[in-house]
C-alpha cells in the first residue's frame, strides 16, 4: 500500500473535500438546523399563543371586575333603598300604631267616664227614691197618721229634689 506525499496537493482529494464540505453543510442543515429551528418556531408559536391567552384572560378578568363592581354598587344602592324604605315604613307604622293606641285609649276613657256618669245618675236616683220612702215613713211616724201618699208625694219629691241639688 503506497502513501501520498506528506505535504502535497492531490487534485482528487481536493475536489472530493470540497464536495464533502458541501455535503456536510447540507447534512448539518437537514439534520440539526432544520429540526431545531422547527422546534424553536413551535415553541415561539406556543409562547405567543400563551401570551395572547394571558392577555385575553386579563381583559376578561377586567370586564368581570367592572361588572362585579357595577353590580356591587347597584346592590349597595338597592340595599340602601330597602333600608330607607323599611325605616320609613317602620316609622309610619309605629306612628300609626301609637295614634291608634291613643285613639283607643281616649275612647276607653270616654266610655269609662260616660259609664261613671250613668252610674252616678243611677245611684242618685236610687238614693232619691230611698230617701223619699224614708221621709214618708218618718213623716208618717211624726204626724202619727197616715198621710196620703198622693197628697204628699209631690211635696216630698220637691223636697228631695232640692236635697239632691
Amino acid at each position, binding site marked *: *500500500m503506497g502513501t*501520498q*506525499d506528506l505535504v502535497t496537493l492531490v487534485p482528487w482529494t481536493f*475536489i472530493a473535500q470540497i464536495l*464533502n*464540505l458541501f455535503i456536510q453543510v447540507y*447534512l448539518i442543515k437537514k439534520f*440539526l438546523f432544520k429540526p431545531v429551528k422547527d422546534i424553536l418556531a413551535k415553541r415561539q408559536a406556543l409562547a405567543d399563543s400563551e401570551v395572547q391567552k394571558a392577555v385575553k384572560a386579563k381583559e376578561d378578568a377586567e370586564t368581570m371586575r367592572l361588572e362585579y363592581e357595577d353590580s356591587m354598587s347597584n346592590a349597595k344602592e338597592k340595599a340602601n333603598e330597602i333600608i330607607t324604605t323599611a325605616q320609613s315604613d317602620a316609622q309610619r307604622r309605629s306612628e300609626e300604631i301609637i295614634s291608634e293606641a291613643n285613639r283607643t285609649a281616649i275612647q276607653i276613657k270616654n266610655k269609662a267616664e260616660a259609664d261613671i256618669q250613668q252610674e252616678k245618675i243611677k245611684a242618685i236616683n236610687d238614693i232619691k227614691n230611698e230617701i223619699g220612702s224614708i221621709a214618708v215613713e218618718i213623716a208618717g211616724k211624726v204626724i202619727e197618721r197616715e198621710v196620703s201618699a198622693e197628697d204628699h208625694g209631690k211635696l216630698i219629691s220637691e223636697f228631695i229634689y232640692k236635697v239632691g241639688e
Partner: protein
Amino acid sequence: MEINIVGPKVYFTLPFELPILGKLEISETLVVSWLVMAIITTFCIVITRNMKVTNISKKQALAEMLVETAEKFVVGNMGVKFRKMIPFVAALFATSLISNLISLLGLRSPTADLSTEAAWAIVVFIMITAEKIRTSGFGGYLKGFTTPIAVMTPFNVLSELATPVSMACRHFGNILSGIVINGLIYASLALASSALLGLIPGAVGAFLSHVPVLSVGLPAVLSVYFDWFTGVMQAYIFCMLTTMYIANASEG
C-alpha cells in the same frame, strides 16, 4: 533507528487516469473524512430525535445550544444579513473539529492533508470574492486592487491570494506539527526506554529493551496540547477568519 513520517495511505486506486487530475486515489484522508461526516451526521440525528416543545431532554438542550451558539457566532461576527451562512460555518467548524480530534482514536486526521485545508480555503476564498463583487460590482472589485495607488496592484493581488494560502497552511501546519512532534516523541521515548532497560544485564534486559515503557504517560500529557488544544483552536480560528473575511468583504 529511523523515523518515517509520511502522508496519508492510499487504500485504493482506480485503474483509469484522467488528464490533469491524474489517478483517482482513495486515500486515508478521504476515508476518515467520510467517517467524520458520518459521525457528525449521526450525532445530529441522535440529538435531534424526539424533540419536544416543552420539558426538553438534555440531548435536545444540547442541540438547541449548538444551534444557538452557531447563530450567535455568525451573527455576532458577520451581522444579521449573513444568517444563511450559519450552516456553512457550523459545518466547517464541526468538520474541522472532529477531523482534528479523530487523531485521538489513532486515525490519521483528514486535516493532516493539505488538500483538505486547501479545499476549504478555496471555498472560503470564492465566497469572499463573490461577496466583494456582489458589494461593489465587478469593476469596483477590480478597482479595489489599485488602491490606494496603482503601483500597489501587484501587492494587493498577492495579499488577496495570500488569504486562502495562509488559512490553509496555518491549519495544516498546526495539525502536521502535532503529528511530527508526536512521532518524534514516541520514537525518542522508545529509544530512551530501550537505553534505560538495556542497562539490565542478560536476556531480561534484551527483552525489556523492546518495551517502550516511557511511552506511557508523557504523550498523553502532550496530546492535551497537540490534539485537544490545537484541534479546537485551529477549528475556531479557521471559522473566525472565514466569518471575518466574508464580513469585511461585504463592507467594500
